């Protein structure tokens, strides 16, 4: 056990002189623990909050875990009543149900003895009985009330289609740029490089006019098409294809393979690792896209999750209990990527410096 601990907390001092903690060790661990709290804390807070009822969300100070007041049905009352631990006039504490609140006083009744006359208790002398409870209706109701399923479907459609087309189009271009000598090759490379410098924020006005003159305004394809040719994708794939030996292609040509077959049966399978990296990137990019879908989609039934969330959270009366739950759902695919595929993304970024 202590060996495990000394492995985890191995530090500068122990390596060199075998004495206590060097100040850099302390800074390191403060930074790491602080980072753990600051980076994960907000997301955890979001998840805990998303299971709270609207009443619990309005509380201050808030509880960390989702608690809800316990309720009870008492004979003679139609609505369920909220349970409290009340300090009775005789000084004892008893579990009582509140019938109604009048100013600073609360009319309470003993649920075990509904026939007894109600007792008047100062509201400072009562504490709600609360237990851990998860308000799962925050998650189920948006599907009914907000057409949430539609948004989910739109997001999935855009993400999958854009990713598939991205892979095909960019791998074809990368194949041409890495395996052929032809006039205009360096010019094509230059154009691709130049598009790196043109972010959406610079061309959104004219891009919008092009999309609408193509009849793609308020159309999911208008969201998909402008994003599918990414310079980053071409570079990642081309870099990888350059490592495939040309002899392999020549051998296939000897065997009368067409260029299309070479691309499809030889080069693509060999590029699989790079394709996987680009696919993961593309899924995250397209799932998270916000500004462009916001511009292209103005009809409610076409919103992606991101657009829907931003519209509903921008309303005057924000229904936070639904917004928080929908935010959590929106986060799920990305968290899955983070848990299972993070390695690919981090090596991808570290290797190319592109995002």
């Amino acid at each position, binding site marked *: 056990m202590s060996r495990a601990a000394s492995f*985890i*907390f191995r530090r*500068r001092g122990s*390596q060199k002189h075998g004495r206590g903690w060097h100040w*850099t060790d302390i*800074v390191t661990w403060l*930074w*790491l623990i602080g*980072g753990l709290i*600051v*980076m*994960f804390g*907000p*997301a955890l*807070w979001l998840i805990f909050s998303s299971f709270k009822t609207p009443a619990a969300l309005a*509380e201050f100070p*808030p509880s960390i875990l989702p608690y809800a007041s316990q309720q009870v049905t008492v004979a003679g009352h139609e609505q369920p009543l909220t349970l409290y631990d009340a300090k009775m006039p005789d000084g004892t504490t008893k579990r009582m149900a509140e019938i109604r609140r009048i100013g600073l006083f609360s009319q309470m009744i003993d649920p075990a003895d509904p026939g007894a006359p109600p007792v008047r208790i100062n509201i400072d002398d009562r504490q709600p009985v609360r237990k851990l409870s998860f308000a799962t209706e925050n998650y189920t109701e948006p599907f009914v009330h907000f057409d949430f399923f539609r948004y989910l479907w739109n997001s999935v459609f855009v993400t999958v289609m854009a990713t598939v087309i991205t892979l095909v*189009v960019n791998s*074809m*271009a990368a*194949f*041409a740029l890495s395996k*052929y*000598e*032809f006039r205009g090759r360096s010019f*094509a490379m230059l*154009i691709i490089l130049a*598009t790196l*410098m043109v972010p959406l*924020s*610079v*061309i*959104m*006005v*004219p891009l919008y*006019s092009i999309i*609408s*003159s193509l009849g793609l305004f308020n159309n999911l394809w208008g969201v998909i*098409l*402008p994003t599918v*040719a990414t310079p980053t994708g071409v570079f990642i794939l081309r870099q990888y294809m350059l490592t495939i030996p040309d002899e392999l292609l020549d051998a296939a040509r000897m065997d009368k393979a*067409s*260029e*299309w077959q070479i691309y*499809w049966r030889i080069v693509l399978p060999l590029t699989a690792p790079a394709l996987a990296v680009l696919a993961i990137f593309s899924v995250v990019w397209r799932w*998270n896209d*916000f500004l462009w879908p916001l*511009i292209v989609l103005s009809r409610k039934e076409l919103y992606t999750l*991101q657009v829907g*969330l*931003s519209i509903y959270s921008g309303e005057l009366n924000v229904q*936070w209990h639904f917004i928080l739950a929908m935010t959590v759902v*929106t986060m799920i695919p990305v*968290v899955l990527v*983070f848990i299972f595929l*993070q390695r690919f993304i*981090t090596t991808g*970024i*570290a290797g190319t*410096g592109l995002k």
Partner: protein
Amino acid sequence: MTVSNADKPTLPERLGTIVKTPVGVVMGLIDAPMRALQRLTGLSGMALFFLAPNMLIFGIFVLLPLGINVVYSVTGGSALFLPERTYVGGDQYARLFDCGNYLDALTCQEDAFWTAVGNTFWFVVLQVTFMILAALVTALILNRNLAARSFWRAVFFFPVLLSPVVVGLIWRWILQRQGLLNFILYPFGMEPYNWLTDRDWSFMAAVGVSLWAHMGFYTLILLAGLQAIPKDLYEAAAMDGTRPGRVFWRITLPLLAPNLIVVIVLALIRAVQVFDEVYILTGGGPGTSTLFLTQYIYETGFVSQPRNPGLAAAASILMGLVLVVLTLLQLGLGKRGENKGKRR
């Protein structure tokens, strides 16, 4: 009778076949016309064919808009259809630059534009400075002899993957009156405060939140740079009994410089375009305290009534020029860094 398990395809294999078979059939069908095309055009023709879809999309959705942007910026009116717009020359640019005093946005005709320029400037200065410092410290710490380094690296990388909308909503929820921040400060005697309705605090929140969301990305690049520094340099320094501070200034920093420059320029490029998470977080408010350039362009071109595509295009071209300068800087410096690496 028993069936040997080895003959049965596993589930992933079966799924693979289900996906591959129809795709393979389609690709096989395409092969015949492809051969005909190849016979017609030859090898270099096929190369152009492979390149065409990408170039077509770049042409229609990137290069063409660039050209139209210029046309928009020298024409007036609210129409989107080009023939319906009237030529106004440099009027849009003149309007953007019509200022009594460039340091005071309120003396300008387009005060929103200059407010956005000023806000973006301060945002870039603050965010990039803190970003580089935080990412550098984190990378240095992750580069130490840590147990479970990949876990810690993942911790700092996590927010990078979140969508800007999710990031904005998470922090709006934390910074509101009944939020987590007030809850944490409550025991210290702070009254609950609505941070995002305060001009200065909402600006600092925009800086802080975008720092939180993007720091992991830059940390990763810096960490890769740190790990590329040859270990023997440090061993030699340790042999000579060099003080750690001196090792940092004389070995780590100079050898990290190429990465550091790339990271700084990348951070600058990204910070100039700040929009999504801040737009969700504050909506540009309160007032115009967190109005940034991209939001100005978006609102001028799409939201305001009547919309003014010409003015938005002019503003976006000015922003594009800044970005081009920064990108060229990055490419130039990146190349120098590469050459340096080769010489080493």
